[in-house]
Protein backbone atom coordinates (compact mmCIF):
# COMPACT_ATOMS: atom_id res chain seq x y z
CA UNK A 1 0.00 0.00 0.00
CA UNK A 2 1.35 3.43 -0.88
CA UNK A 3 1.75 6.24 1.63
CA UNK A 4 -1.12 8.16 0.03
CA UNK A 5 -3.41 5.15 0.39
CA UNK A 6 -2.47 4.79 4.05
CA UNK A 7 -3.13 8.48 4.66
CA UNK A 8 -6.47 8.24 2.88
CA UNK A 9 -7.37 5.32 5.10
CA UNK A 10 -6.35 7.26 8.22
CA UNK A 11 -8.40 10.22 7.04
CA UNK A 12 -11.43 8.01 6.46
CA UNK A 13 -11.12 6.49 9.93
CA UNK A 14 -10.73 9.95 11.51
CA UNK A 15 -13.75 11.26 9.59
CA UNK A 16 -15.82 8.29 10.72
CA UNK A 17 -14.83 8.94 14.34
CA UNK A 18 -15.75 12.64 14.05
CA UNK A 19 -19.11 11.81 12.46
CA UNK A 20 -19.83 9.24 15.17
CA UNK A 21 -19.02 11.75 17.92
CA UNK A 22 -21.18 14.45 16.29
CA UNK A 23 -23.97 11.92 15.86
CA UNK A 24 -23.70 10.82 19.48
CA UNK A 25 -23.52 14.34 20.91
CA UNK A 26 -25.75 16.21 18.48
CA UNK A 27 -27.79 13.84 16.30
CA UNK A 28 -25.84 15.09 13.30
CA UNK A 29 -27.48 12.79 10.79
CA UNK A 30 -31.02 13.68 11.89
CA UNK A 31 -30.24 17.39 11.67
CA UNK A 32 -28.64 17.06 8.25
CA UNK A 33 -31.48 14.96 6.88
CA UNK A 34 -34.06 17.33 8.38
CA UNK A 35 -32.47 20.38 6.77
CA UNK A 36 -32.41 18.70 3.39
CA UNK A 37 -36.00 17.41 3.39
CA UNK A 38 -38.15 18.80 0.58
CA UNK A 39 -41.16 20.83 1.66
CA UNK A 40 -44.06 18.60 2.64
CA UNK A 41 -42.00 15.39 2.59
CA UNK A 42 -43.79 12.44 4.18
CA UNK A 43 -42.28 9.13 5.16
CA UNK A 44 -40.87 7.48 8.23
CA UNK A 45 -39.37 9.31 11.22
CA UNK A 46 -35.82 10.55 10.74
CA UNK A 47 -34.98 9.02 14.11
CA UNK A 48 -36.83 6.80 16.55
CA UNK A 49 -34.97 8.29 19.49
CA UNK A 50 -35.13 12.09 19.36
CA UNK A 51 -33.36 14.04 22.08
CA UNK A 52 -33.44 17.54 23.44
CA UNK A 53 -30.62 19.50 21.87
CA UNK A 54 -29.50 23.08 22.35
CA UNK A 55 -27.43 25.55 20.37
CA UNK A 56 -26.41 27.20 23.64
CA UNK A 57 -23.05 26.42 25.14
CA UNK A 58 -22.53 24.95 28.61
CA UNK A 59 -23.93 24.97 31.23
CA UNK A 60 -26.86 23.91 29.05
CA UNK A 61 -26.56 20.11 29.37
CA UNK A 62 -28.10 19.59 25.93
CA UNK A 63 -25.47 21.70 24.17
CA UNK A 64 -24.58 20.25 20.81
CA UNK A 65 -21.00 20.52 19.53
CA UNK A 66 -20.13 24.07 18.56
CA UNK A 67 -19.78 23.33 14.86
CA UNK A 68 -23.34 21.97 14.79
CA UNK A 69 -24.67 24.89 16.79
CA UNK A 70 -23.09 27.29 14.31
CA UNK A 71 -24.58 25.37 11.42
CA UNK A 72 -28.06 25.27 12.97
CA UNK A 73 -28.23 29.04 12.97
CA UNK A 74 -25.96 31.54 14.63
CA UNK A 75 -26.59 33.74 17.65
CA UNK A 76 -28.16 31.86 20.53
CA UNK A 77 -28.42 33.99 23.66
CA UNK A 78 -26.44 33.51 26.82
CA UNK A 79 -27.83 30.67 28.93
CA UNK A 80 -27.01 32.54 32.13
CA UNK A 81 -30.52 33.82 32.69
CA UNK A 82 -31.05 35.55 29.36
CA UNK A 83 -32.50 32.59 27.55
CA UNK A 84 -32.69 28.86 27.92
CA UNK A 85 -33.47 27.06 24.71
CA UNK A 86 -33.75 23.48 23.59
CA UNK A 87 -35.23 21.78 20.58
CA UNK A 88 -36.10 18.37 19.32
CA UNK A 89 -37.09 16.69 16.11
CA UNK A 90 -40.77 15.61 15.95
CA UNK A 91 -42.49 13.29 13.51
CA UNK A 92 -46.10 14.26 12.81
CA UNK A 93 -47.67 11.24 11.17
CA UNK A 94 -51.30 11.23 9.99
CA UNK A 95 -53.51 9.85 12.76
CA UNK A 96 -50.65 10.07 15.24
CA UNK A 97 -50.46 13.62 16.58
CA UNK A 98 -47.55 14.88 18.62
CA UNK A 99 -48.63 15.51 22.20
CA UNK A 100 -46.64 17.70 24.56
CA UNK A 101 -47.35 17.91 28.25
CA UNK A 102 -45.50 20.36 30.45
CA UNK A 103 -45.70 22.72 33.37
CA UNK A 104 -46.00 26.47 33.61
CA UNK A 105 -42.67 28.04 32.81
CA UNK A 106 -40.98 30.06 35.54
CA UNK A 107 -39.69 32.99 33.51
CA UNK A 108 -40.74 36.37 32.17
CA UNK A 109 -41.49 35.13 28.70
CA UNK A 110 -41.50 31.77 26.97
CA UNK A 111 -42.29 30.53 23.52
CA UNK A 112 -42.81 27.27 21.64
CA UNK A 113 -42.10 27.30 17.91
CA UNK A 114 -42.43 24.57 15.30
CA UNK A 115 -39.87 24.95 12.52
CA UNK A 116 -40.05 23.17 9.20
CA UNK A 117 -37.04 22.29 7.03
CA UNK A 118 -37.46 25.37 4.85
CA UNK A 119 -37.16 27.59 7.92
CA UNK A 120 -33.76 26.15 8.73
CA UNK A 121 -32.72 26.58 5.13
CA UNK A 122 -33.89 30.20 5.14
CA UNK A 123 -36.35 29.52 2.33
CA UNK A 124 -39.62 29.89 4.22
CA UNK A 125 -41.95 32.63 3.08
CA UNK A 126 -44.06 32.54 6.22
CA UNK A 127 -43.26 32.51 9.92
CA UNK A 128 -43.31 29.16 11.70
CA UNK A 129 -46.32 28.39 13.90
CA UNK A 130 -45.65 29.34 17.49
CA UNK A 131 -47.31 29.86 20.86
CA UNK A 132 -46.28 32.23 23.60
CA UNK A 133 -46.59 31.35 27.27
CA UNK A 134 -49.45 33.82 27.68
CA UNK A 135 -51.36 32.28 24.78
CA UNK A 136 -51.29 28.84 26.37
CA UNK A 137 -54.30 27.57 28.30
CA UNK A 138 -53.21 26.01 31.56
CA UNK A 139 -54.98 23.45 33.72
CA UNK A 140 -55.69 24.30 37.34
CA UNK A 141 -52.51 22.55 38.45
CA UNK A 142 -50.40 24.78 36.20
CA UNK A 143 -49.77 22.11 33.57
CA UNK A 144 -50.50 22.45 29.88
CA UNK A 145 -51.00 20.11 26.92
CA UNK A 146 -50.26 20.94 23.32
CA UNK A 147 -51.29 18.95 20.26
CA UNK A 148 -49.65 19.04 16.83
CA UNK A 149 -51.59 16.95 14.35
CA UNK A 150 -53.07 16.90 10.89
CA UNK A 151 -56.59 16.10 12.05
CA UNK A 152 -59.02 18.66 13.47
CA UNK A 153 -58.74 18.84 17.26
CA UNK A 154 -60.62 20.42 20.11
CA UNK A 155 -57.44 20.60 22.21
CA UNK A 156 -57.08 23.81 24.19
CA UNK A 157 -53.61 24.33 22.75
CA UNK A 158 -52.68 23.28 19.24
CA UNK A 159 -50.17 24.08 16.51
CA UNK A 160 -51.04 23.47 12.87
CA UNK A 161 -48.28 21.53 11.07
CA UNK A 162 -49.63 22.84 7.73
CA UNK A 163 -49.26 19.45 6.11
CA UNK A 164 -45.68 18.91 7.25
CA UNK A 165 -44.73 15.51 8.62
CA UNK A 166 -41.36 16.54 10.04
CA UNK A 167 -40.75 19.44 12.39
CA UNK A 168 -38.25 20.87 14.81
CA UNK A 169 -39.87 21.88 18.06
CA UNK A 170 -38.05 24.73 19.83
CA UNK A 171 -38.69 25.95 23.37
CA UNK A 172 -37.24 29.24 24.56
CA UNK A 173 -37.36 30.77 28.01
CA UNK A 174 -36.40 34.38 28.59
CA UNK A 175 -35.27 35.88 31.88
CA UNK A 176 -35.77 33.38 34.58
CA UNK A 177 -34.94 34.19 38.18
CA UNK A 178 -31.82 32.86 39.76
CA UNK A 179 -32.31 29.41 41.18
CA UNK A 180 -35.49 28.40 39.35
CA UNK A 181 -36.21 24.81 38.40
CA UNK A 182 -36.78 24.50 34.67
CA UNK A 183 -39.19 21.83 33.49
CA UNK A 184 -38.77 20.08 30.19
CA UNK A 185 -42.11 18.78 28.90
CA UNK A 186 -42.79 15.20 27.96
CA UNK A 187 -43.36 14.53 24.26
CA UNK A 188 -45.39 11.70 22.75
CA UNK A 189 -45.68 10.73 19.12
CA UNK A 190 -49.17 9.27 19.14
CA UNK A 191 -49.21 7.05 22.21
CA UNK A 192 -45.46 6.47 22.29
CA UNK A 193 -43.49 8.44 24.86
CA UNK A 194 -40.39 9.60 23.03
CA UNK A 195 -39.12 12.25 25.47
CA UNK A 196 -39.90 11.94 29.17
CA UNK A 197 -40.37 15.04 31.30
CA UNK A 198 -37.39 16.17 33.31
CA UNK A 199 -36.36 19.04 35.53
CA UNK A 200 -33.14 21.00 35.67
CA UNK A 201 -32.82 22.24 39.20
CA UNK A 202 -31.67 25.69 40.27
CA UNK A 203 -30.55 27.34 37.05
CA UNK A 204 -28.13 30.20 37.40
CA UNK A 205 -29.20 33.66 36.29
CA UNK A 206 -27.11 36.83 36.29
CA UNK A 207 -30.06 39.17 35.63
CA UNK A 208 -30.83 41.86 36.43
CA UNK A 209 -27.37 43.20 37.10
CA UNK A 210 -26.61 45.23 40.18
CA UNK A 211 -24.64 48.45 40.23
CA UNK A 212 -25.10 52.06 39.20
CA UNK A 213 -26.08 53.22 35.74
CA UNK A 214 -23.15 54.50 33.70
CA UNK A 215 -23.82 57.61 31.61
CA UNK A 216 -21.81 59.45 29.00
CA UNK A 217 -19.23 61.74 30.50
Amino acid at each position, binding site marked *: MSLAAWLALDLAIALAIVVLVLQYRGQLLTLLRFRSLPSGAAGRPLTRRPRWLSTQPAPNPDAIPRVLAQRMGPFPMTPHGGDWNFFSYVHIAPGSPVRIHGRRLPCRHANITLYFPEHLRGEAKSLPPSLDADQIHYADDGSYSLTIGHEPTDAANALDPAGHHHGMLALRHYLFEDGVDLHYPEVRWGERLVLPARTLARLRSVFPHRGPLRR*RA
Partner: protein
Amino acid sequence: MSVFVHLAVIAVLVIALPLVLQELVARRNARMVDESALAYTGARSREALVNRRAHVNRDPRFAQNPAVTGFIFFYDCRETDLVVEGVLPACRFFGISVYDRYSMPGEAMVIDEDVRAGDGRFIAFLTTRPSGARNEIDVRAIPRGTGIIRYSHMERPETIEEIEPSLARVAAGDREPPKTTP
Protein backbone atom coordinates in the same frame (compact mmCIF):
# COMPACT_ATOMS: atom_id res chain seq x y z
CA MET B 1 4.08 2.29 8.66
CA SER B 2 3.69 1.10 12.19
CA VAL B 3 0.35 0.95 13.94
CA PHE B 4 1.49 3.69 16.29
CA VAL B 5 2.15 6.08 13.45
CA HIS B 6 -1.34 5.41 12.10
CA LEU B 7 -2.87 5.97 15.50
CA ALA B 8 -0.95 9.23 15.87
CA VAL B 9 -2.09 10.42 12.42
CA ILE B 10 -5.69 9.49 13.19
CA ALA B 11 -5.55 11.25 16.57
CA VAL B 12 -4.22 14.43 14.96
CA LEU B 13 -6.93 14.29 12.30
CA VAL B 14 -9.68 13.67 14.88
CA ILE B 15 -8.59 16.85 16.66
CA ALA B 16 -7.97 18.88 13.52
CA LEU B 17 -11.07 17.99 11.50
CA PRO B 18 -13.62 19.58 13.88
CA LEU B 19 -11.45 22.69 14.09
CA VAL B 20 -11.31 22.95 10.30
CA LEU B 21 -15.05 22.35 10.05
CA GLN B 22 -15.68 24.94 12.73
CA GLU B 23 -13.58 27.47 10.90
CA LEU B 24 -15.36 26.80 7.61
CA VAL B 25 -18.78 27.21 9.20
CA ALA B 26 -17.64 30.33 11.05
CA ARG B 27 -16.48 31.87 7.77
CA ARG B 28 -19.72 30.93 6.08
CA ASN B 29 -21.74 32.50 8.90
CA ALA B 30 -19.58 35.61 8.92
CA ARG B 31 -20.04 35.96 5.17
CA MET B 32 -23.80 35.60 5.59
CA VAL B 33 -23.90 38.22 8.35
CA ASP B 34 -21.70 40.60 6.38
CA GLU B 35 -23.78 40.18 3.22
CA SER B 36 -26.91 40.95 5.21
CA ALA B 37 -25.34 44.01 6.76
CA LEU B 38 -24.15 45.41 3.44
CA ALA B 39 -27.49 44.71 1.76
CA TYR B 40 -29.50 46.39 4.51
CA THR B 41 -27.26 49.41 4.99
CA GLY B 42 -25.85 49.97 1.52
CA ALA B 43 -22.40 50.24 3.08
CA ARG B 44 -19.44 49.28 0.92
CA SER B 45 -17.62 47.24 3.50
CA ARG B 46 -18.07 45.72 6.90
CA GLU B 47 -15.33 47.94 8.26
CA ALA B 48 -17.43 50.98 7.41
CA LEU B 49 -20.04 49.76 9.89
CA VAL B 50 -17.79 48.77 12.79
CA ASN B 51 -18.58 50.94 15.84
CA ARG B 52 -20.68 53.16 13.59
CA ARG B 53 -24.08 51.79 12.74
CA ALA B 54 -26.61 49.19 13.79
CA HIS B 55 -28.90 47.75 11.15
CA VAL B 56 -32.22 45.96 11.28
CA ASN B 57 -31.95 42.21 11.65
CA ARG B 58 -34.45 40.77 9.21
CA ASP B 59 -32.45 37.99 7.65
CA PRO B 60 -34.55 34.81 7.71
CA ARG B 61 -31.39 32.71 7.51
CA PHE B 62 -30.72 33.35 11.18
CA ALA B 63 -33.76 31.20 12.15
CA GLN B 64 -34.49 33.21 15.24
CA ASN B 65 -37.61 33.41 17.32
CA PRO B 66 -40.26 34.86 14.97
CA ALA B 67 -41.51 37.20 17.70
CA VAL B 68 -38.09 38.81 18.02
CA THR B 69 -36.97 41.77 16.00
CA GLY B 70 -33.98 44.02 16.46
CA PHE B 71 -30.62 45.21 15.25
CA ILE B 72 -27.16 43.86 14.51
CA PHE B 73 -23.96 45.82 14.89
CA PHE B 74 -20.25 45.16 14.62
CA TYR B 75 -17.92 46.41 17.30
CA ASP B 76 -14.25 46.73 18.07
CA CYS B 77 -13.51 47.70 21.67
CA ARG B 78 -9.79 47.05 21.75
CA GLU B 79 -8.96 50.75 21.91
CA THR B 80 -12.15 52.45 23.01
CA ASP B 81 -15.46 51.69 24.62
CA LEU B 82 -18.60 51.74 22.55
CA VAL B 83 -21.79 53.39 23.74
CA VAL B 84 -25.10 52.18 22.33
CA GLU B 85 -28.09 54.46 22.86
CA GLY B 86 -31.62 54.34 21.63
CA VAL B 87 -35.30 54.05 22.27
CA LEU B 88 -36.56 51.38 24.63
CA PRO B 89 -39.98 50.67 23.16
CA ALA B 90 -42.80 48.78 24.79
CA CYS B 91 -41.84 45.15 24.42
CA ARG B 92 -41.80 42.00 26.48
CA PHE B 93 -38.08 41.50 26.43
CA PHE B 94 -35.11 43.66 25.50
CA GLY B 95 -31.52 42.51 25.52
CA ILE B 96 -28.11 43.22 24.03
CA SER B 97 -25.84 40.22 23.48
CA VAL B 98 -22.37 39.91 22.00
CA TYR B 99 -20.97 37.09 19.87
CA ASP B 100 -17.57 35.82 18.90
CA ARG B 101 -16.47 34.98 15.38
CA TYR B 102 -18.00 31.54 15.78
CA SER B 103 -21.43 33.11 16.39
CA MET B 104 -21.39 31.88 19.97
CA PRO B 105 -22.58 34.13 22.80
CA GLY B 106 -20.43 35.81 25.36
CA GLU B 107 -21.52 35.38 28.93
CA ALA B 108 -21.96 39.13 29.31
CA MET B 109 -25.28 40.57 28.25
CA VAL B 110 -27.67 43.27 29.44
CA ILE B 111 -31.45 43.42 29.63
CA ASP B 112 -33.97 46.25 29.80
CA GLU B 113 -33.75 46.62 33.57
CA ASP B 114 -29.98 47.07 33.32
CA VAL B 115 -29.98 49.79 30.67
CA ARG B 116 -33.17 51.80 31.18
CA ALA B 117 -32.09 55.45 31.24
CA GLY B 118 -35.42 57.22 31.65
CA ASP B 119 -37.56 59.01 29.06
CA GLY B 120 -38.14 55.71 27.27
CA ARG B 121 -34.49 55.38 26.28
CA PHE B 122 -31.63 53.01 26.99
CA ILE B 123 -27.88 53.40 27.22
CA ALA B 124 -25.35 50.56 27.26
CA PHE B 125 -21.56 50.44 27.09
CA LEU B 126 -19.38 47.74 25.59
CA THR B 127 -16.08 47.82 27.37
CA THR B 128 -12.94 45.83 28.05
CA ARG B 129 -12.47 47.66 31.35
CA PRO B 130 -15.78 47.38 33.17
CA SER B 131 -16.32 49.64 36.15
CA GLY B 132 -19.13 47.67 37.70
CA ALA B 133 -22.01 49.65 36.24
CA ARG B 134 -25.06 47.55 35.50
CA ASN B 135 -25.34 48.79 31.91
CA GLU B 136 -21.84 47.69 30.89
CA ILE B 137 -21.21 44.65 28.73
CA ASP B 138 -17.85 43.19 29.58
CA VAL B 139 -16.27 42.27 26.24
CA ARG B 140 -12.82 41.33 27.52
CA ALA B 141 -13.38 37.81 26.20
CA ILE B 142 -14.64 39.08 22.83
CA PRO B 143 -13.12 42.55 22.23
CA ARG B 144 -14.09 42.40 18.55
CA GLY B 145 -17.35 40.83 17.55
CA THR B 146 -21.00 41.16 16.66
CA GLY B 147 -23.71 42.59 18.87
CA ILE B 148 -27.40 41.90 18.66
CA ILE B 149 -30.09 44.13 20.13
CA ARG B 150 -33.32 42.19 20.57
CA TYR B 151 -36.86 43.38 21.11
CA SER B 152 -39.33 40.60 21.71
CA HIS B 153 -43.01 41.24 21.03
CA MET B 154 -42.69 44.93 20.31
CA GLU B 155 -46.06 46.58 20.45
CA ARG B 156 -45.42 48.18 17.05
CA PRO B 157 -42.75 46.12 15.25
CA GLU B 158 -43.42 47.99 12.02
CA THR B 159 -41.75 51.04 13.55
CA ILE B 160 -38.47 49.26 14.16
CA GLU B 161 -36.56 51.19 11.50
CA GLU B 162 -37.56 54.47 13.11
CA ILE B 163 -35.73 53.64 16.31
CA GLU B 164 -32.30 52.68 15.00
CA PRO B 165 -29.92 52.94 17.97
CA SER B 166 -26.85 55.12 17.71
CA LEU B 167 -23.31 53.86 18.23
CA ALA B 168 -20.41 56.02 19.32
CA ARG B 169 -16.90 55.40 20.47
CA VAL B 170 -16.14 56.62 23.93
CA ALA B 171 -12.55 57.75 24.23
CA ALA B 172 -10.42 56.45 27.04
CA GLY B 173 -10.56 59.89 28.60
CA ASP B 174 -14.30 59.58 28.92
CA ARG B 175 -13.96 56.46 30.96
CA GLU B 176 -14.79 57.75 34.42
CA PRO B 177 -16.33 56.11 37.41
CA PRO B 178 -20.04 55.69 36.77
CA LYS B 179 -22.37 58.31 38.08
CA THR B 180 -24.55 56.75 40.68
CA THR B 181 -28.08 56.83 39.41
CA PRO B 182 -30.56 54.69 41.27
